[in-house]
Every structure is written in C-alpha cells, then in structure tokens.
C-alpha cells in the first residue's frame, strides 16, 4: 500500500485529482478489456510462466472460456513489478513496492503447478516439470520471460553489489535494486566516475540503462557533486537507442548533460575489487575504471525453451527467442503454440507495455480458433518507454516495428519532450495500469 493514501481522506481526495490527471491520460491508451462472450471448450491450455504475460492471459482466458482446463506452470511464488525496479534503484520507492505474491494475480478455477518447466516437447505436446510432472496440452502459451545471464560477465558476483564495491545490478530484482540504490546514493554523495552500459543481446526495457544514467546524473547535480564527477555511457553498438529519431534526441540529451558516450563497447568482465570493467571493443579489449557501475548482463531465453525446438534456428541463435509470427504471435512451426512477452522472437517489444498489447492478440487468435473462427487481431510492435531524464521529468516514448513514433496522445503529450506529465504517468499511473492488466482488466 502506498504510504500516502492511508492518511486523511482530504489528502487522498487530492491525490484523486492527480489520479484523474495522470490515470485518465494513461488509461486512454489502454487496450480494450476482454469481451464478455464466452466460448465453451474442454481444451487443455498450458501457460508457461506466471509473470505479467502469464498471469494476465490466464485471467483473460478464464473469463472468456467455459470449461477449458487452464494450467499455469511457474516455480516462483513471488511476482515482481519490474518497471518499478528503476524507481527502487533511484531511492524513490522501497523494494517492497515491486513485490507481490503470484497467488494474488492468478484466477480461481485454474491449476497452478508450482514448478518450473524442465523440458518442452512441442511435437508430443508435452511439458515435463522440474518436479517430474508430465503435462499434456492442446495449446501452449510460452510466457516464461527471459533469464539474466550473470555468468557471462566474468568476475561479477551478484552477492557483492553495494556501496563497498561501487557496483550495482538493478535488473536482478527488488533487493538488488535496493542495494544498487545504496551504492548509487553513496557514490553521488562524494562523486567520481560513473559507468553505465548495456548488453549486446536483446534486452528487456532497453531504455532502463539510459534512465538510470540520467537519474545518477540528476542526483550528482542535486547533491552538488556533479562538477567533481565524470559519467561514461558505454553503448554496445553505434547507437544509444534502436529508434533513429529517439536516438538523435538521446544524443542531444547526453551532450547537454555532459555524459561521455563511447560506442562499440560490450562488457566482458568486471573486477569488483579494483573497480575496473573490461569491454570488448572490436578485436581488442578496453579497461574502464569506475567508482560506480550498474551492470546489466546479456539476456537469453530459459534453457528449457532453448532446448525445445521452439527457438528461431537462424536468428538470435545465441539467445533463443521463440519463432513466432511478428503480427499474430503464433508460432511459425507449431500453430498451437503462442508467445507473450520477452520470450518472443520479434524485433521489438520486451516491455510490460508490449505485453499489454500482446495479450488481446493471443487471446483473440486462441479463443477464435476454439470458437471455429479465424482470429484477426495483430501486434504492430508497440513498445513504450517512459524515458526518465531526471526526477520529475520524462519523455513518453512509444514506437512500433517500423520505428514510427506512435504517441498515445498526439498533439497533447509530445513524445520527445521532457514533461512532468510523462513522469507522473510513470510514477503514479503505470503500476495501477499494470495491475489492472494482470487481472485481465486492461
């Protein structure tokens, strides 16, 4: 519960004004909730993963399908609101802000197998779990999310992040985000050299490394230590962001904030004692010393998925994203398999905002098929990133497969303008919209 909302009613009602302003705008961009029409079926539907995609599609299908046997497979009992990790790592929210129980979000009337998928056989239509259960399915929805490959960063030890090593890892989870904040807070008190980078693989929320760089810059300025500090952003290729017009704007912002940007740097190892990061730079390597470094590792599909034959054979071969049609999110070789969220091998969209737009598409194609019709919904690559540029301001960046900007509020909320309203959406309205999505209501 938010600490602000259980005080006086008068105070709460004022927050209501805020909600009207922010939530109203954010809501106008939401996708429609599930239609009410029910379809009778006895299909066995297996959902791998109870994260944002898995929990939300379970709710939607439970609402739409009468008689379906829906099973969710996930060994995790905790749900993390991952868009909040940046706020935790910036000291703006406690770790608990991002935590809830998976059981809070899954609907009644379904089966939750509290184990992980160990083996997926799409030919035999069977999933085996880590506990040895054999689960047969008629339809499979892969919403496992991705795994953070910490081992790929040589010398890095997740247990040692914090102020002592000046090393953070805010992607790792709520507690690690909180320790990253402790490290960033201590660093910005005294200043020094801050280093940021991103992996060369596809990654969830490609804006987060940049946001965190801007937030650190902001704290240095607020604490009066920016003059005595240097910030380096090490990009993995020759751009900061894959969307050219956004990249151009970010270039300008980096210049304005006096952040040194270096390109073609892919993190290989970290020496947490000496505080030195080693990057592959073409044929050679380059060492960069730091006082604060937020490590973001390469990201891949879980091993069970990579070994299942569902991955692309000729694309992202070191990462293993599944081969779904980029419009329908239906598997290219196994038509009874769909993908939702980070696991999808599509050119854009490893964000919770994309999940929100994956959901109605998968729901439409699956429910339509069960009803004897053809689904029509398509995913256009929609990805959204509230790019925080300092505490109190953000740019609401939304784009599609073609790198078009697709603002939800054209002419009202300018996508490349640093606005308070965009910050407000991230800070106040986003989690509420996310939670409504999990329940299948947004």
């Amino acid at each position: 519960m938010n600490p602000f909302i259980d005080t006086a009613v008068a105070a709460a009602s004022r927050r209501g004004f805020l909600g009207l302003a922010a939530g109203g705008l954010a809501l106008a961009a939401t996708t429609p909730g599930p239609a009410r029409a029910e379809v009778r079926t006895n299909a066995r539907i297996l959902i791998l993963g109870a994260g944002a995609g898995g929990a939300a599609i379970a709710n939607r299908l439970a609402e739409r399908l009468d008689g379906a046997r829906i099973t969710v497979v996930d060994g995790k009992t905790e749900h993390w609101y991952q868009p909040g990790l940046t706020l935790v790592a910036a000291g703006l929210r406690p770790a608990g802000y991002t935590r809830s129980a998976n059981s809070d979000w899954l609907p009644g009337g379904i089966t939750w197998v509290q184990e992980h998928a160990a083996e997926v056989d799409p030919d035999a239509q069977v999933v085996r779990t880590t506990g040895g259960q054999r689960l047969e399915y008629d339809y499979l929805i892969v919403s496992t999310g991705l795994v953070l490959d910490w081992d790929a960063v040589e010398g890095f030890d997740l247990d040692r992040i914090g102020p002592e090593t000046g090393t953070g890892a805010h992607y790792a989870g709520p507690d690690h985000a909180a320790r990253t904040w402790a490290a960033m807070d201590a660093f910005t008190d005294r200043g020094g050299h801050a280093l940021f980078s991103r992996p060369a693989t596809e990654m969830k929320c490609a804006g987060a490394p940049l946001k965190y760089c801007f937030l650190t810059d902001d704290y240095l300025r607020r604490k009066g230590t920016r003059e005595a500090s240097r910030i380096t952003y090490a990009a993995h290729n020759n751009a900061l962001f894959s969307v050219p017009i956004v990249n151009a704007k970010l270039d300008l912002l980096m210049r304005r904030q006096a952040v040194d940007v270096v390109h073609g740097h892919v993190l290989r190892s970290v020496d947490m004692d000496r505080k030195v990061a080693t990057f592959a730079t073409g044929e050679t390597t380059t060492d960069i010393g730091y006082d604060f470094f937020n490590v973001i590792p390469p990201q891949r599909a879980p091993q069970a998925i990579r070994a299942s034959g569902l991955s692309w054979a000729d694309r992202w071969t070191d990462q293993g994203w599944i081969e779904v049609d980029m419009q329908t999110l239906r598997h290219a070789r196994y038509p009874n398999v769909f993908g939702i969220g980070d696991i999808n091998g599509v050119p854009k969209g490893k964000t919770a905002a994309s999940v929100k737009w994956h959901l109605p598409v998968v729901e439409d194609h699956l429910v339509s098929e069960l009803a004897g019709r053809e689904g029509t919904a398509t995913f256009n690559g929609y990805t959204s990133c509230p790019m925080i540029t300092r505490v109190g301001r953000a740019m609401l960046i939304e784009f599609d497969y073609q790198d078009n900007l697709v603002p939800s509020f054209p002419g009202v909320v300018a996508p490349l303008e640093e606005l308070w309203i965009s910050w407000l959406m991230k800070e106040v309205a986003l989690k509420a919209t996310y939670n409504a999505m999990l329940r299948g209501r947004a």
Partner: protein
Amino acid sequence: MEEFSLSTFLAVFEEMFGTWLFWAMVGVAALITLAYAFVLIRDHGMGMRRFLLAQLSMPVGAVAAVAFVLWVTRSRVVDIGGPIDWIVLLGVAVLGAGGFSILVYVAQSLIRGGRDSDAT
C-alpha cells in the same frame, strides 16, 4: 489511441488506491456534493457571507492541491516542462479550489445551520 472503456478506467483507479479506498473517496465526494445540495435546498438559496468565505478559501485549496500533487510525485515547479504540464497543474489547482470552497461552504452551513441574514 485505442478504445477507451469506463470499466478499464475504474479498474485502474481501483488498483491505484485500492478498491475500498477508491470507492470510499467516491462516496465522500458524493456525500459532500449531496450535503451541498441539501443546504442549498434547505436554505432556499446561497448564503452570501458563507459564499464569500468559501470564495476566499479558494486560493488556499488551489495552492494546497498543487503542493500536495508535487509532494506526492516528488516533483518541483521547475519540472513543469510543456503546455500540457501547465494545463494539468492548473486543472489540479481549479479542482482544489472548487472542492475546497464547496467543503468550506457546506461546513459553515452545517455547523451554523439555518440561513444567513443576507441569504438570497
């Protein structure tokens, strides 16, 4: 912009405040509105002295609403960046002013009871 539905809108607000608090807030707002209607009907018009005090309280409500919103969102006035920011902030001020003035009017009417000598 995609389709917009009232149920989605309500769902997000329930998530934002919690179902009970959200509907309690709606209830309180409705009660104050009803109380306002009640005193208007009971007094057959507005008490101008009470109305004057209510009007004088408007800037207080406006400033309080803006200050509260900035505090809740960890923002400062310097974060206001574009026209939409000013519009939203002015909207917050107007709502704060209007809401607080109604509250002040209703409170006076209920505490003092009856009509002002200058009621119209």
